[in-house]
């Protein structure tokens, strides 16, 4: 198997984060209690999503520069996989919110922004669906992707920081580092982030291969 090293690393890290995330000691905090373990499963999804969307953005630029079909496939499949991780991030976040904030979807800038960011990428898929010609579809969707990516970044990382928010790391709230005074979370969290990014890349690669086979048939 090609790239067996990083693929094994991804699998090992994800399993380590499953076991470590559920069993290791965590800081005892009011309200959060044991639900703080979700940090290894919720936040990592967004890291994987951003990594995949960024690769999709890069591939779109490469597609416009070279016109090679492989970049078009790479960009659409990394966006597809990114959307999948985004949905997982929303779901894990809603479960967490149910237990800490009392309801799965409080009206909060961070939550609304992430939902809109998902809409941007779903619109990208609709746009692709509406064009039949391959090259035209590749070019126009690449243009939209490059246009949408900075707006997604602004939505997720700039706008929520400017208003009051329940979400950690936003609206003057401290981020996760303040909960982790003795680095007990970090030993699981960082491998988990890396593991999920690698798994995401792997899924994306497999999807790219399936697409390539489907195209040659």
């Amino acid at each position, binding site marked *: 198997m090609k790239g067996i090293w990083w693929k094994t690393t991804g699998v090992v890290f994800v399993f380590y984060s499953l076991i470590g995330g559920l069993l290791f000691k965590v800081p005892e905090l009011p309200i959060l209690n044991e639900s703080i373990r979700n940090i290894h499963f919720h936040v990592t999804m967004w890291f994987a999503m951003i990594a995949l969307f960024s690769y999709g953005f890069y591939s779109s630029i490469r597609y*416009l520069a070279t016109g090679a079909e492989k970049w078009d496939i790479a960009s659409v499949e990394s966006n597809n996989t990114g959307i999948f991780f985004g949905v997982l991030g929303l779901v894990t976040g809603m479960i967490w919110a149910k237990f800490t904030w009392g309801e799965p979807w409080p009206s909060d*800038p961070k939550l609304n*922004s992430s939902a*809109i*960011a998902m*809409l*941007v990428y779903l*619109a990208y898929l*609709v*746009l692709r669906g*509406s*064009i039949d010609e391959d090259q*035209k579809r590749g*070019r*126009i969707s*690449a*243009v*939209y992707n*490059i*246009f*949408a990516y*900075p*707006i997604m970044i*602004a*939505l997720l990382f*700039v*706008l929520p920081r*400017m*208003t009051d928010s329940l979400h950690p790391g936003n609206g003057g709230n401290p981020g996760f580092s303040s909960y982790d005074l003795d680095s007990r979370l970090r030993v699981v969290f960082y491998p988990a982030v890396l593991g999920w990014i690698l798994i995401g890349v792997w899924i994306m690669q497999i999807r790219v291969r399936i697409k390539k086979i489907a195209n040659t048939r």
Partner: protein
Amino acid sequence: MKKLAADTGALIRKEWVLEWRNRYALNGILLYATATVYTCYLSFRSVEPVVWNAVFWIILLFSAINAVAKSFLVESRGRQLYFYTLAHPQAIMLAKIIYNVLLMLLIAAVSLIFYVIVFDNPVADMPMYLLAVLLGCLSFASTLTMVSGIASRAGNNFSLMAILSFPVVIPLLILLIKLSKNAMDGLDRSVSADEIVLLLAINVIVIVLALLLFPYLWRD
């Protein structure tokens, strides 16, 4: 550079001449804005200041989508090709954006005046509110022009325009509503500095991207 400026100027003039000869489109969009304002007046009668502000921006957003969507959608393929042989695509994009900003300013001025007449005027800091409207016109025109260019390439339909533009415009709308609400409440102007800087930054990014990407968009 000089040619770009000259081309852009000529193209803006062309847009205006076309609009003026075809006045029904311009009148139509102004009537659309005023009719929407009046419909809102009849449905609400009197409103809370927060709703006042939100309704105004929603009216402006929908007028903008209607006004700007046609900037690429109405031109036939043949005529567009003819322009591309005459001028650089960047000049065409720049001309469209500038023209749409001017068009949006006209629409915003008419709707705001009419809006203030039928509803009362709760704005405490009018110059700041006008700055928010100005930034709003700039933001709507720049993003929607680009999205209209994309939608026109993808089968020329209006629903695609709406699907593509809403998620892209919403972040700008959030900032604009916040900025204009600060102005409406008469908060100290330094409070709004963040929003103004961020809006300007997003606009710069959007316009630069539009100019960089448009050359890839038009050729078939």
